């Protein structure tokens, strides 16, 4: 079940398992992921054109996604983090919808299994 979830969102199940030991625990973290507010921080700051706050949100989200081995989401979040770090806000604006799409995909998939 968890393995299927990872396949659906283009994540890396093996890495996640080695890191979190078992499916039960991965599930616990998927729950935590739903509560994590870094995506909201990123989205709010993008709305307000606040590059600095957006960077903080993206940076945190990136760390979380890497820990969770959400490979696809992690890749786009990494991209927007670097764009925001370099203060290339216009580029980040173009990247953000892709981030949102991937993020939503993960959220939906989590809701399906818990």
């Amino acid at each position, binding site marked *: 079940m968890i393995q299927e979830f990872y396949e659906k969102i283009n994540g890396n199940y093996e890495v996640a398992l080695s*890191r979190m030991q078992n499916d039960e625990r991965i599930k616990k973290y998927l729950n935590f992921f739903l509560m*994590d507010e870094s995506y909201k921080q990123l989205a709010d700051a993008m709305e307000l054109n606040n590059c600095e706050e957006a960077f*903080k949100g993206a940076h945190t989200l990136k760390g979380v996604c*890497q820990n969770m081995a959400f490979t696809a989401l992690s890749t786009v979040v990494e991209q927007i983090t670097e764009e925001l770090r370099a203060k290339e806000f216009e580029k980040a604006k173009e990247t953000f919808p892709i981030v949102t799409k991937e993020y939503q995909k993960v959220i939906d998939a989590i809701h399906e299994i818990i």
Partner: protein
Amino acid sequence: MEKRDTLLIVDDVMINREMLKDIFEDGEYKILEAANGEEAIELLDAHQKEIALVFLDLVMPKKNGLEVMHHMSLNNMINIIPVIMITGEATVESDVKAYELGAADIIYKPFEPAVVTRRAKNIIELYEHRISIENELELRTQELFESKRQIEQSNIFLINALSSVVEFRSLESGEHIQRVKKYTEIMLRHWRALYGGEQFTDEQIELMVNASALHDIGKIAIPDNILLKPGRLTDEEYAEMKKHTIYGCQMLEKFKQEENEFYRYCYDICRYHHERYDGKGYPDGLVGDDIPIWAQVVSIVDVYDALINERVYKPPFSIDETYRMIHDGECGTFSPKLLKCFDDAREDLVSANTKQ
């Protein structure tokens, strides 16, 4: 010392804290968590004796990781409690910065449990080891100080014992040597205060004072019939008596181990405490400041003590009379500088004597 058994995990992202917690789930360590710098500082202050290691995120609300490290530096925790910086990406600048601030190590997200536990263990052991070595060193240093103090005490005891041999034989007042020591110290301190250019350190003064106790040690080589003769000495006898300065040096030379400062003061004082500033003293007829100042000092206080106290051949003289006789050159010649110092020290010399 209590073993440190607690890990402090500081990260504003709950998932990150949970992952670190799970990595250390085996129960070897108690876990404390902080979601921002302020909480971290509160926990550090409250548990600084228990915390073995801090995992510290850099970017956090309400005081960031740098401020936490700064607090640890200010409160002397940074050298005792290791900090592992948690960072999202490896850049040379941020790594260098973390180490500069006193981080013991850096780990990157995502966390690899095996790496994190190994690193944490290594660093905790490293700090424990270092702290125990430092404690050990501190202990050894204290022991060293203590044994140095004991050696100094036994040295003083031996010097006093040795010098009292002479007093014992010559039937002189048993306190003469203690007084000479006291006067020598007073004179040297006044000398130092008066003539700043020729400073002696406290340690040097202590050595000179101890050396002064041995000034007449050569008298044990003088035969009884001369040393203890109640009447006036013949010229021949007086010539022999004068040799106590040489005998003293010969004795010292026999057990001289190597050239050192204390030996030099002992030697100079034994040999030259009957020299005169005008060159008419004995045994070498040294003139002026060729006579070492420590020998000059012992010379004048030896005369001073002989004058103010009773001897078989004379009554005690008053302080005024003693000062007059010394100034008028009736009991040897001394340098103007030394006489000035002698005047300067008068009050202290007199009160040292009455205290006995």
